[in-house]
């Protein structure tokens, strides 16, 4: 029998992390009035997903799943397509970065993957703004500052994810996962 790319356990793990992204987006609030600040939460979760399921495509699955959940919950203020695409691209962007950089437990790699993933979300909003004439909804502080904000908060989130992975390894969580796989 052909072995599946992701095991059921891994898919459940990824789906739980996707749900956690949506919950974090709804429940967690940072008192920072800067576009992109929520990247601290969800890029952290994305990088943890990349570490727990170290296969190309894992973070894309998390992004797509969280995008579907968020779109069905009516989250985002520029429509379901925008929500679905931007959540998905967060995962795809991180995946592409990790294809190049590989190890998300390296803190520099984690920060860079976080920055790439979160910048992908910005690119979706920006491209939709250009292509559809839709309001970008994030230009009040200027495009350059918004972009820098997305990258910095994405990198901070990635760093947080990298630190979480290190803590999980110290706690023996990866040994537990190896048994489950």
């Amino acid at each position, binding site marked *: 029998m052909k072995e599946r790319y992701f095991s059921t356990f891994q898919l459940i793990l990824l789906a739980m992390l996707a749900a956690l992204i949506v919950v974090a987006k709804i429940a967690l609030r940072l008192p920072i009035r800067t576009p992109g600040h929520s990247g601290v939460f969800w890029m952290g979760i994305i990088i943890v997903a990349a570490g727990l399921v170290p296969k190309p495509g894992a973070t894309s699955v998390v992004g797509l799943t969280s995008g579907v959940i968020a779109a069905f919950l009516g989250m985002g*203020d520029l429509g379901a397509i925008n929500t679905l695409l931007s959540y998905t691209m967060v995962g795809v962007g991180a995946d592409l970065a990790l294809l190049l950089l*590989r190890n998300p437990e*390296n803190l520099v790699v984690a920060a860079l993957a976080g920055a790439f993933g979160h910048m992908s979300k910005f690119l979706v909003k920006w491209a939709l703004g*250009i292509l559809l004439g839709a309001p970008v*909804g994030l230009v*009040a502080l200027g495009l350059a500052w918004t972009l820098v904000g997305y990258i910095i908060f994405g990198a901070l989130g990635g760093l947080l994810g990298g630190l979480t992975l290190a803590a999980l390894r110290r706690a023996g969580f990866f040994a537990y996962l190896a048994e489950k796989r």
Partner: protein
Amino acid sequence: MSQRALILVAIVILVALVGGVLGIEALRRLMNPASPSGEVTLSPGDTPIYLDEQLVAGFGPADLDQLETVSFVDAEKGKLQQGRLLPDVLPLHMDADVLMPEWSIVVSSSSQGTSAQLTWAEVNNEANMVMLSLTNRGTLKLVSLLEALDTREEWVVDADKIEIFSP
């Protein structure tokens, strides 16, 4: 390739992407046809102000930075709302002396499909605190102490257009 080299490559790609975005934005500005003298031009991110459906002015983030920040605690959730008074914003690029108390000011959001209509008398009364505040995402929202505009449901979030109508 070593990990360090890969990280450098990633940083170069990231910088190239940022440069690409800013370059395309700069190109978009250049490709906008030059306006005849006297015509108002808006930069990306500017909020246009229309007077009787004629574009008369626009303001951007830098304009708002010049203005005094005011605040009030909203009655609905008791949170501090900070921003710039709309009657301070309008005179930045237009002659606000022409506005009469009974004229309508409509602030709308094209993305949310919401709007609020006030008279200039209401807007110009500082006690009403009709102000443009920054949302967490960096967009503008119209908030006020006025009864018609004092709950989150009534606020105009992602406000991107101001229209003034004379009777």
